[in-house]
């Protein structure tokens, strides 16, 4: 019974990882691609590891540490990538409505 739940969680994680890859191919510009890649692949990663924890209950503590590590590093790296992409002025797709970082930088520069 637990193996069934574990297999279902692994399948769900695989679906999320596949959608991350699909999103990276189909999104229009760099910023949306970074967002699709990070969120979906982090969640897919965590679901696969939780599913494996159902299969081998005595590995739970090690898998929990790995999940913590993944949750700590993926958002930080995508944050650094996004800010770097904005700093070298990669063009945004035309459907963009607001650019909060550019407004924040301009208010900082006009205030200092």
């Amino acid at each position, binding site marked *: 019974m637990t193996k069934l739940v574990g297999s279902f969680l692994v399948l769900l994680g695989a679906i999320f990882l596949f959608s991350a890859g699909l999103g990276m191919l189909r999104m229009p510009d760099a910023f949306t691609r970074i967002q699709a890649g990070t969120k979906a692949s982090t969640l897919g990663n965590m679901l696969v590891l939780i599913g494996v924890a159902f299969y081998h209950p005595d590995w739970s503590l090690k898998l929990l540490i790995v999940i913590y*590590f993944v949750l700590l590093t993926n958002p*930080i790296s995508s944050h*650094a990538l996004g800010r770097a992409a904005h*700093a070298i002025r990669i063009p945004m797709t035309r459907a963009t409505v607001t650019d909060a970082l550019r407004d924040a930088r301009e208010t900082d520069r006009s205030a200092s």
Partner: protein
Amino acid sequence: MIRRAFNTLVVALFALLFATIAVTYTEQQTLPKLAAGYVKLVPQELGAPNVITGILLTYRGFDTLGEVAVLFMVAAGLGLVLGDSTRRRDAVPAESEAIVPSTELVRNGAAILFPLISIFAAYIIMNGHLSAGGGFQGGAIIASGVMLLLLANPEYLVDHDFLGGTESLAGVLYVLAGIAGLIFAGGFLDSRMLPLGQFGAFFSAGAIPIISVLLGVKVGCELSVIIDRFRG
């Protein structure tokens, strides 16, 4: 148009070749004789549970020395191609903002992660003879930790003299360990010059932990220097 047709033709011919190999390949049922010999000999003569590290550091130790030499040549070559000081002076600075300061998120994340990465790298280097790991893998992890520091603090100047000196010292000690193997034991880089110890203990398998540590330090320093050269 004709270039596209040519590309497709080349890829199709390679695909045909690879498909022939992949379909008609039969799995091995037993180990070949040399591999069976290694799997039997390494725990017996060297006292190391990890067969692959025993092969890499003792029986094929000369190939590892060649690879260390290749890494050193690449670091020196990159210094030649990218590290020209006149090029740094004439380089046009970026349009408006020269260096974008890193945000608080990245800095705090690096402060949490860098000790974890260092401990993990030390664990992998020291456990090379007991379980999967070894010198090269641990050295690459140290270099990734240094890259994290570079990202978090853009004004962090890597001390090239210290890293270059450490790397050369580690290389010299590695060759001296090889020559010591020649004098005290069977041949070049023979790790039986130190006592074998108890099988599976931390300090066992002769000189393999020491050679792992030297390799890890050398590879870590080299990769850090290579990453730093790409920054300027």
